[in-house]
């Protein structure tokens, strides 16, 4: 976070409760810089949409303050916040044509007729819907409606655009296409975006930074690569990407590393001490499937354990292998389908090895 430039959006210890008994958002802090693409990612009910609604002004914060360009906005009604928003079901006004939908924010701002039609045409061109201005939303496909919704949120040139699971209703191919489209719009217009989704690949594809939500708390706020490679706790490690878990007890801590004795009789392994208590505390070891080697000689890796091959799934570019290791029979290893790699058979016993830096000891 840069000290010199004011963040565009700041959540300052924001809390939210609907019923006065349960906090759906517990102490939420977030700074969003100008031009940034920040995604709030989390399972449903984790509080991410609530945070977005508080930012948009549709839900009041129970406690704490939200700032937009340094100004507290808790008491600013939604229509005065100047924030563009794309809704989950697009919320295109069904009784207006596409062009009228786009003109709506400009009309309520009192722009002139010719200016409005210029801007509307430009916005439609931007999302490649040049000839569709006279249609009703119901006459468009899901993807087209989505693009209209995005361009409507942008047409009045807000500095901040919020998107609430905008791609949830699209099928998989269209969703991927739209991810890139939104990403490109973001890059071209340099507009700040706050995006809410429960789809991690969507988040990883599009965002500068991702806030992972669970249980009303931001578990980790980091760029996608860091989130994937350096998860700070077991929830993030499990939520983002595929992840092997091993449980154990911390026996010894040496600077950045620690020695962990595995439950299930796997013996001692060396791991990166990321998020653990003292010696004797329980820990979860997190290990990405692609960071393990299989069939390696015992000496070539820091850690090496014996494993039994339970199941092989042929996936073309790689073979997904489920092995049982230290009592965990859901341990996944990806074996590249290339020359020079071992070819396993089900039931056979092999060695699985990994480096201490790839094995993160996290909270239990």
């Amino acid at each position, binding site marked *: 976070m840069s000290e010199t430039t004011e963040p565009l959006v700041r959540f300052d210890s924001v809390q939210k409760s609907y019923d006065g008994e349960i906090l759906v958002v517990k102490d939420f802090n977030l700074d969003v810089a100008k031009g940034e693409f920040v995604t709030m990612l989390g399972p449903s009910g984790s509080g991410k949409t609530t945070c977005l609604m508080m930012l948009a002004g549709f839900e009041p914060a129970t406690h704490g303050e939200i700032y937009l360009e340094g100004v507290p906005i808790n008491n600013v009604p939604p*229509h005065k916040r100047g924030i563009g928003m794309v809704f989950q*079901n697009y919320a295109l*006004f069904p009784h207006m044509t596409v062009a009228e939908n786009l003109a709506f924010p400009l009309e309520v701002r009192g722009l002139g007729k010719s200016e409005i039609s210029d801007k509307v045409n430009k916005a439609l061109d931007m999302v490649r819907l040049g000839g569709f201005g006279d249609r009703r939303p119901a006459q468009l496909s899901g993807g087209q409606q989505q693009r209209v919704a995005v361009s409507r949120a942008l047409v009045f040139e807000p500095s901040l655009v919020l998107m609430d699971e905008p791609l949830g209703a699209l099928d998989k191919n269209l969703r991927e296409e739209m991810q890139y489209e939104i990403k490109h719009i973001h890059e071209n217009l340099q507009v700040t975006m706050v995006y809410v989704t429960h789809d991690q690949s969507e988040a990883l594809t599009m965002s500068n930074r991702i806030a992972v939500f669970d249980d009303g708390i931001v578990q980790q706020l980091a760029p996608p690569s860091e989130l994937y490679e350096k998860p700070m706790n077991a929830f993030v490690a499990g939520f983002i990407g595929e992840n092997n878990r091993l449980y154990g007890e911390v026996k010894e801590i040496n600077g950045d590393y620690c020695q962990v004795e595995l439950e299930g009789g796997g013996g001692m392994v060396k791991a990166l001490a990321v998020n653990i208590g003292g010696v004797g505390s329980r820990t979860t070891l997190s290990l990405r499937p692609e960071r393990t080697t299989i069939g390696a000689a015992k000496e070539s890796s820091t850690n090496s354990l014996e494993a039994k091959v339970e199941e092989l799934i042929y996936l073309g570019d790689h073979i997904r292998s489920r092995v049982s290791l230290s009592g965990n029979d859901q341990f996944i290893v990806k074996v590249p389908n290339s020359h020079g790699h071992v070819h396993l058979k089900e039931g056979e016993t092999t060695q699985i090895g990994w480096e201490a830096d790839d094995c993160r000891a996290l909270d239990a």
Partner: protein
Amino acid sequence: MADNTTAGEVVLAADGLPLKASLNRAMRKSRRRALFLVAPLFIFVLFSFLIPIFDMTMRSVDNWHVSTLMPETTKALEGWDGEAMPEEPVFAALILDLKAGAISREIGKVGTRLNYEKSGLRSMITSSARKSKKVTEGPYKPQVLKMHKRWKELETWKVIKRNTAPYTIGYYLNAVDMKYDNKTGDIVMQSEDRQIYTTLFIRTFAISLAITLICVVLAYPISYLLATLPVRYSNLLMIFVLLPFWTSLLVRTTAWIAMLQSQGVLNDLFVFVGLVDDADRLQLIHNLTGTIIAMTHILLPFMVLPLFSVMKTIPPSYMRAALSLGANPVVAFVRVYMPQTLSGIGAGSILVFILSIGYYITPALVGGTDGTLISNQIAYHMQSSLNWGLAGALGALLLFSVLALYLIYNKIVGIDNMRLG
């Protein structure tokens, strides 16, 4: 292959029959099934609705009485020019008809029919029919003229002559406050102190319109509340809205009277808070105010239900989207929310308007002088005066004006846009 593609070529199915025929055959079974499913309703509607309506409409032009029950007189009057009193053959025919009618005891119907055109002809016909039994031989003219003074009036004969025609527009003239001038035979306005039906038509439409508007104004906020509240609260509220449906008319009427009369609860309250003086309490019932209050109360659910069902389908994100786009709440409501409820407003308005046009018990009970609507007159002519021809004409006019309104509505709003929930 090439000759198969010529224009107009019949496309053949796999078995060589034309595709259309095959399709028809395949569809016939499902069509028969559909027919079978709607048949009971169709028959019910036919006998309980269409045939009675047709029958009443026919009665509004049917004029069988004179030509059927006084066939001889009808024939004898064929050549009469209407300039001078008819001659002996007509009177001879009249005596024949009166005698036959007295025996069949149906001559009263002629009297009733003629009395619609001119008051007093009923007793002329019935008393003359009684007296005709004693007439044995001619000349008949002097004997008939002695039977009743009205036989001497040329007007009487013109009325009879006019009504020998098997069809009449007389009932429709009556229904729009017009009549035949019995002296000249021209169509003229009804005398001023008997003009009632046009006033009542206008009044009925005006009151119905007022009730519809009040219903829209009252139902809109409550429907909005119902549609946005959580289901457990909205169900409870809905019961209050539907309560008028579940109480009998008499209970409701008694309740209104207890509430609204000048010594009633509402006036007591007004006096208590000092809103009105005890000496001049408000007259809230037995007048137009009472009619409108009571009918609005009854018909409100018919507005709430379609509005509610339409509003229920509008997700809150539309309003939020409008706000996020910079519209203040009022603009957002007017430009985004309201247009989407138009179909509900339309459906509710049509329901309430048509129902209020047809209401007559409530206005009769709580309406006092102002409570007479056109349907009260229709009911009166159906049940009391037995002038079914006029009742049919009034009913047909009402039906046609409602249909016309419906067509206009369809033209403006489009009936496809109407949602009843």
